[in-house]
């Protein structure tokens, strides 16, 4: 079944060059739609109480190299897979104006790559998929990006390629140093390695996945890539790709090096607090609303790092919830910013005004933007609150000061979203320019669906966290608590 999740988008992508122009979108939609439906069916069948991997598949591939086609999901990876297939469907639906066969093919391939990486149960297979999605994203930015797309695409390529190299180097070292029979996750046990070696390998992983998240100060590719990318690509970048970074940190860095992680955790919590504050302050300083949303992403991904650093049960549930929540909210915000840019022709904060105008503005878009901003700022009743509250609740006991800084960061999120909303939605619509095209229903639909999800998961958080509770408990159980590690350190 997991193979189908990977193969279906690949088949869709391979069909693109063969199809007539008018069929492109329909076939892409069917491919993405069926994949999403399948992932949803898996989610429904997923046994939330079971600690073992589910939907496992194993096919020996290049055994001498330790590479097997080994797949499986748990409460960490499955929700992210569903998020990825869902956002891919949204992107295919919204990609109407970019109705190019290559566009759909690349989007579907990117989805296949991300799903493969999340489902992989073999380190080399993970790297294979991890690198595979790089090419579609690079081309998506390069071909459908903004004016400075070449620079942004190259920057993205270099950074993420370095990320891939670091991760590959760490994985190879992990396998070789312990003489593992294969690179299957189950065969990798790092406990016997010297603490220094573990520390070095962990550092490689933190750097590798930190670039992907991205962590401050490894983030400088992100604003350019997010801003220059077209709206659909930005949704995939922020909503799906960045999650591979946090997933990698939790799965590999925390999962394989629990003790070393514990020793690094205080530093990581500080890095997270810096990232949250930096992301928020940088967002406040922006004059381009897309760049503002992009910087907000840096801050919000740092919440995941804080939760992972604390690695309590509650914070881990919060971390996974935050990945989903951030994916949905960021997708909504990028989508709405894209609509505004398309209709108004600018993303400049100093130019936009009065878009809430019911007759000639973009009232629905503006209303949803306000709601998206509220969700991002962690207003109760919306999904952002659930995730952030769990993280704060779970992290405070371990890292009170970084957690308090994160809480202040949430306040700063409210500040820049109030700035954005106040300047963009309120005020007087400019008479001279207020001839914006109407936002038609098909353009509103993706935003409405995303909003409904944000609302639904906000008032029914069980549907957000139930999938990952057992897995979170399992991850945490394998790791000595940060408090214990700190206490065990020589005084």
């Amino acid at each position, binding site marked *: 079944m997991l193979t189908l999740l990977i193969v279906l988008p690949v088949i869709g992508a391979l069909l693109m060059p063969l199809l007539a122009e008018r069929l492109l979108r329909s076939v892409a939609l069917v491919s993405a739609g069926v994949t999403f439906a399948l992932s949803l069916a898996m989610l429904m069948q997923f046994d939330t109480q079971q600690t073992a991997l589910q939907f496992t598949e194993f096919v020996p591939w290049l055994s001498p190299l330790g590479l097997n086609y080994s797949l499986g999901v748990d409460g960490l990876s499955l929700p992210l897979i569903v998020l990825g297939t869902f956002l891919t469907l949204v992107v295919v639906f919204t990609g109407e104006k970019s109705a190019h066969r290559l566009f759909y093919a690349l989007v579907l391939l990117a989805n296949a790559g991300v799903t493969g990486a999340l489902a992989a149960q073999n380190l080399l297979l993970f790297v294979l998929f991890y690198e595979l999605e790089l090419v579609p994203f690079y081309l998506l930015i390069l071909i459908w990006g903004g004016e400075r797309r070449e620079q942004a695409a190259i920057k993205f390529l270099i950074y993420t390629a370095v990320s891939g190299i670091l991760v590959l180097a760490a994985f190879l070292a992990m396998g070789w140093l312990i003489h593992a029979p294969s690179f299957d996750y189950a065969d990798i046990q790092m406990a016997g390695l010297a603490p220094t070696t573990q520390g070095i390998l962990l550092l490689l992983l933190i750097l590798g996945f930190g670039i992907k998240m991205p962590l401050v100060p490894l983030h400088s590719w992100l604003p350019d890539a997010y801003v220059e990318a077209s709206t659909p690509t930005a949704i995939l970048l922020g909503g799906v790709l960045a999650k591979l970074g946090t997933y990698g940190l939790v799965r590999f860095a925390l999962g394989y090096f629990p003790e070393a992680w514990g020793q690094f955790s205080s530093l990581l919590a500080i890095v997270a607090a810096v990232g949250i504050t930096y992301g928020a302050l940088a967002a406040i300083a922006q004059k381009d609303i897309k760049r503002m949303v992009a910087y907000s992403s840096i801050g919000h991904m740092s919440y995941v790092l804080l939760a992972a650093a604390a690695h309590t049960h509650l914070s881990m549930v919060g971390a996974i919830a935050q990945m989903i929540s951030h994916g949905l909210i960021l997708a909504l915000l990028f989508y709405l910013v894209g609509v505004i840019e398309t209709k108004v022709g600018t993303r400049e904060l100093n130019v936009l005004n*009065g878009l*809430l*105008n*019911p*007759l*000639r*503005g973009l009232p629905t878009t*503006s209303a949803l933007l306000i709601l998206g901003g509220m969700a991002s700022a962690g207003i109760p009743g919306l999904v952002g609150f659930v995730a952030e509250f769990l993280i704060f609740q779970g992290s405070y006991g371990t890292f009170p000061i970084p957690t308090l800084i994160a809480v202040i960061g949430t306040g700063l999120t409210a500040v820049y979203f109030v700035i954005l909303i106040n300047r963009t*939605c*309120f*005020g*007087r*619509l400019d*008479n*001279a320019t*207020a*001839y914006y095209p*109407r936002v038609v229903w098909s353009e509103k639909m993706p935003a409405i669906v995303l909003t409904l999800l944000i609302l639904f998961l906000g008032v029914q958080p069980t549907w957000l966290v139930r999938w990952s509770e057992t897995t979170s408990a399992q991850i945490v159980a394998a790791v000595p608590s940060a408090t214990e590690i700190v206490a065990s350190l020589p005084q």
Partner: protein
Amino acid sequence: MVQAIERPSSAKLPPLDHPLADIIYRLEAGGALIPDTPVNLMKIIGMYKAYSIPMDFYWRDLLYLGERVFINPFPFFKYFPTKEYFDLPNHYAGDTADLRIWRGPAHAHPELMAFIEKGETGKMPRLLHHLWHDRINMEFSEDLARAMMWHRMGGELDIYLDSEEYKAAADKAIRAYFKRNPLMLGLYKLFPDLFLEQARQATYMNVLGLFWEVMAPVFFEISDRYDEGSITSVKDAMNFLVNGIFAVAGRPIYHHVYIDDEVHVLVPKEKGFMWLYEAAFPYVEAVFYRTAPFRGTKSYNAQANQVPTDQVDFHYGILFADKFPVGTAGIPPTLLHQDMYHFLPQYLKDYFHQHCRGEDDILVQLGIAFQHSMYTVTSAVLQATRAAFYYPLDDPNPEHLMANRRFFVAQMNRFIRPQYGIAEACKIRNVQDPNYL
């Protein structure tokens, strides 16, 4: 894009260094404040038609307010004029007209009567139509009358309203009105000025009613002539208005109040107050240039000292109306827009549906078209004033032409006053642009 204006061939004046020079040249050539294009003509005539039918209700109800409701402190049914007022023969329409301007009937317009009966929702008691706001919104016209009163242009009538003669007549009428109401009589004793001011307001309601009694048939007729093809340019339309203004300029302005079976004359016809000077000019000055009866006008921020301390500087009228309602910071289209919307001629409805957002922002498009039509009315007033007080446009004497120019320049200067941001707010540059919709 601003339409290029040819200076009149007869011009014997030097070129003008003025931000609105093109418009002044057009006025000197006998034109209007807006470019003479078929689309502009269609818009202004269509809006006259849409405006005239509510106006037929406004003037009838305003007379009802002035003559019957008068100073009723709880006028719950003031927007329900009696049948007598719907049947009231217009002095400028029908067979009984003093001067027949419209060839149609003298009683209320048939489209108005049909709307009052059915509205947009369907046939039901008038009170339900009223509560549902499926009606002609009289609030608009009351605001205009109050605006005229607040600005009090300093004409003869204005002086008369402060005279002992008026006060005595008003006192008599007030006492008669409350003769069976000791409480109100007691209050009148305590606060006589308050009641007197209410009487003056009733007089202004009456004055505005008398003004619109003329304008409604003018607009009916102009619309009919456009439909027949005899009005083919903005200039034709403007000249029709100018001729109409002159034809009725001397109409007496008066105020009679009917209490029980008695007629109380607050402003007698014999005083010789004339329609042009006591109703038309003050209306244009107060409503078009200065006042704020229209919700949706330029916003003043009192805390930022944007409200002029001098009443004359309070420029806030329809010509300055911002047609874009904005969330919490803005104001929805006016009630007048909604009133006119019910009576849009099909050709204008079709035009609006093809532009901008069609039905969705039709009130904005309608408001902007209304600006065009009101600029044409203003043009007619300017040309009529020039004709009355200055010189013919083809006068051979350059001094006379220069006097005309000074008049036009002075008027245009009112639209470019930088201290209140009027230059942009008044939209006079916008209405030159065919893409301003």
